[in-house]
């Protein structure tokens, strides 16, 4: 019975997820030349190119450190924000939570475009900086712009798991610590933070993964010269028509994603399973 | 002629036997309770009768018809679930009418029957309300009306009063019994509360670890428990350990430094037995004038009764006396304890 009920979904996912992924894996091993296009012969040349070429190293490295920095900033802003929100009274709490999370439902293109206006040479940010005498600063088309916009898009993904973690906390536990003469900051550090760690880790995983594979934001805010993994794949596919190479890059990204996820799971299992269940 | 017969009903979950060879005959119009601690198999038995659990072996025969393997929606039984299971998205009227709707009864007749059922449980003014607008007691009555309106051959009640507070529970016990007597439906109730089972049932089936340990009228169950378990589960009892010293017209049991004469057949000399003595059968008398003396180690005032814990040569005994009857000894006081011979029961 359950198989009958799951059949339509299984058929759909099998044919439009599993099969395409398999085909793409095969594709990444196909030969490509500008003259003849994609051939059916197999080669490891594309993987060799990506793993060996400095150019691609640079792209992966940039993608990595941009994503890592974004993740750290999201933790630094998102976790405290979730905490502040959890201590608000209704109706403010509901309103603020909504304002922080609702941008999730607006297309990333719109948000990226908004940032390109804000951070542009004539944008409000530069105007404010100029009025402070700090001269026009080039933000747009640098990593800084990409990071700022990524933080904006990814912040809800950090707030949600931390918020969920905070909700599971028994407020009486904090009170117990206070009654035992702990200072408020100590309570935060020794009582709240350890319990919220799984939420922070979960959020970090999501933020890092999404940042590493982000497309629209590096595309609109990074400009033609600032490439990240997703925009490189786009170039290979739509401009160079070198699908096998693009596939290789994308699959390496997927692999990196999976490795990060598995190590996270392993880490959480080991350190938090006993205490958190 | 039994109306509902459960014969050798057994249920295994994997290797775990939850109901073991249960047999029970229920007469038409009878109110029977399945009583026991959690895990004794009473709810599983009810589920098998209802059709939500498949019996591993045994049979269920209702009014001559074998329903052991009939599907749950073809048995036509009335069921009141522990959580009431009212349809939250339907009004009280629609909830009660649902069973009649499934039987394709025309609307006019349905309306009449539902109104009758609601009047019987005193919920007429709430026919358009929704479950979330009702109190716990009101929801329970809707569930009852919904089960009875279809005029089922048997009514099954799964811990129907456990979610109500104490005062309401008492009221509902009487209501339940009153309605059942009026309508005359054969009823099986599952409960872990022995006062509940005893106060409204015609017969009580005491279950333990999947087996039936005793089936009796409430009074006999209380006065003549057949095992230590039943004696302790149904009401409170003092259990005095002893040995059979002699047998004859009456058995002589030695316990501590004393000897007791009690009714008992089939006992072997030297066998270890327990004597069951209900706390309310012990009277306070002047020290030295009873069967034995004791110190009051603690006493508790329970409203209508006093409970005194006595330190005696037979161990700790509990004594209960009604408030207002006689003077209750103070803590630490030494008094005599007296009881009649027929107040003691021998348990193996």
């Amino acid at each position, binding site marked *: 019975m*359950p*198989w009958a*009920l*799951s059949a339509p*979904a299984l058929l*759909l*996912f099998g044919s*439009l*997820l599993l099969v*395409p992924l398999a*085909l*793409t894996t095969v594709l990444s091993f196909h030969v490509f030349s500008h003259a003849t296009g994609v051939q059916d012969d197999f080669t490891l040349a594309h993987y060799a190119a990506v793993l060996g070429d400095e150019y691609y190293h640079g792209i992966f490295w940039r993608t990595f450190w941009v994503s890592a920095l974004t993740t750290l900033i999201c933790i630094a802003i998102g976790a405290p924000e979730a905490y502040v929100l959890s201590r*608000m009274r209704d109706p403010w709490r509901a309103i603020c939570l909504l*304002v922080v*999370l*609702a941008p999730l*439902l*607006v*297309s*990333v*293109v*719109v*948000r990226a475009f*908004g940032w390109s*206006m*804000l951070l542009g040479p004539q944008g*409000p940010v530069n105007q404010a900086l100029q009025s402070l005498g700090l001269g026009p600063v080039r933000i747009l088309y640098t990593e800084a712009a990409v990071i700022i*916009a990524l933080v904006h898009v990814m*912040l809800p993904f950090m707030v949600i798991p931390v918020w969920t973690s905070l909700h599971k906390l028994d*407020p009486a536990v*904090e009170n117990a610590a206070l009654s035992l003469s702990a200072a408020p900051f100590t309570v935060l550090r020794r009582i709240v933070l350890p319990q919220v760690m799984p939420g922070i880790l979960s959020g970090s995983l999501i933020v890092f993964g*999404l940042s590493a*594979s982000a*497309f*629209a934001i590096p*595309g*609109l805010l990074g400009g033609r010269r600032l490439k990240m993994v*997703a925009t490189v794949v*786009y170039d290979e*596919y739509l401009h160079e028509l070198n*699908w096998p190479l693009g596939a290789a890059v*994308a*699959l390496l*990204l*997927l692999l990196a*994603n999976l490795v990060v996820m598995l190590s996270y799971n392993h880490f959480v299992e080991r350190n938090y399973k006993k205490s958190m269940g | 002629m039994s109306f509902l017969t459960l014969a050798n009903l057994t249920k295994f979950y994997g290797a775990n036997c939850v109901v073991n060879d249960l047999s029970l005959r229920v007469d038409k119009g009878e109110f029977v309770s399945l009583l026991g601690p959690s895990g004794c198999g009473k709810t599983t038995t009810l589920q098998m009768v209802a*059709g939500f659990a498949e019996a591993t072996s045994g049979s269920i025969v209702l009014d001559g018809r074998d329903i052991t393997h009939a599907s*749950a*929606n*073809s048995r*036509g*039984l009335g*069921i009141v679930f522990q*959580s009431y*299971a009212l*349809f939250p*998205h339907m009004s009280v009227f629609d909830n009660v009418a*649902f069973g009649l709707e*499934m039987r394709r009864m025309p609307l006019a007749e349905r309306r009449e029957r539902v109104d009758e059922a609601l009047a019987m449980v005193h919920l007429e003014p709430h026919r358009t309300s929704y479950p979330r607008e009702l109190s716990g007691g009101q929801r329970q009555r809707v569930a009852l009306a919904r089960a009875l309106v*279809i005029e089922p051959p048997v009514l099954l009640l799964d811990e129907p009063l456990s979610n109500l507070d104490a005062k309401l529970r008492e009221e509902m016990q009487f209501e339940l019994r009153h309605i059942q007597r009026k309508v005359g439906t054969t009823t099986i109730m599952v409960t872990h509360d022995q006062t509940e089972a005893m106060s409204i049932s015609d017969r009580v089936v005491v279950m333990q670890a999947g087996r039936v340990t005793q089936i009796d009228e409430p009074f006999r169950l209380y006065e003549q428990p057949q095992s230590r378990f039943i004696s302790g589960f149904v009401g409170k009892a003092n259990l005095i350990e002893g040995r059979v010293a002699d047998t004859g017209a009456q058995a002589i049991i030695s316990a501590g430094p004393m000897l007791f004469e009690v009714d008992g057949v089939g006992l072997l000399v030297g066998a270890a037995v327990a004597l069951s003595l209900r706390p309310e059968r012990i009277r306070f008398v002047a020290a030295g004038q009873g069967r034995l003396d004791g110190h009051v180690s603690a006493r508790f005032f329970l409203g209508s009764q006093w409970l005194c814990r006595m330190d005696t040569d037979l161990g700790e005994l509990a004594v209960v006396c009604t408030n207002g009857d006689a003077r209750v000894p103070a803590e630490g006081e030494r008094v005599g304890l007296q009881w009649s011979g027929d107040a003691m029961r021998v348990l193996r």
Partner: protein
Amino acid sequence: MAKNSPLALAFNACVIAFMLAPLLIVCAVAFTPENTLTIPSTHLSLRWFKAVFAHADLVQSFWNSLWLALSAATLATLVAVPAGLAITRHAFAGRDALNALFLSPLVIPHLVLGIAILRSFSLIGATGSFGWLVLAHVVIVTPYVMRLVVAAATGFDRSCEQAALSLGASHFTVFRRITLPMILPGVAGGWLLAFINSFDEVTMSIFVTAPSTVTLPVRMYMYATESIDPLMAAASALMVGFTAAVMVLLDRLYGLDRILVGGK
């Protein structure tokens, strides 16, 4: 509950401002009477909104996105409801694997899904087909419906279904009259969430759409990389308005905070 210090509240205000900034500027610039991206200072003008409605490509891609999202959300719901019920109610070998599979589009980068599906489409000649595009979107949005269906089915009191059975209802009647109405808020919320995610989607769509099936976000992306003028701002403002309307609907039906955070 302890109160927040003024510092905490100021911090919160900054975060709020940060989250709203790009949306506010987009809406502000959309009303500019100028030819370049400027915040209107003298008066507001609707000229760029009119330009949006006059721009055939943009309007066409809006309709593409709308039909795409409607179809994808509906199909995803039809597929996810039985699967979600199966996963919640039956313990069967492979259940965890199936659950992971159905939720996997949430962890597989849309970039990877985009090129993978593009490859499949090119092999079977489905590249310009609207129908196949819908199916690609269905895969992406199904997890959103599935999560909400599973949440609704998990918190479900099954004794109501047993009560209905005992009163003589057939299994199908139980599903239709009891189960479905009780999980409907979850299903409806899931549908809306799927709708908005399909409508917004750009990364996978940019690979999978063809000139005839270009969606609004993809069109806007391409436009934004080529030229920057207030037309883009007006189109963005309209999208923000559209999203806001959907959010209000979502809140009425299910509760926006429940959807975003997952239950109080």
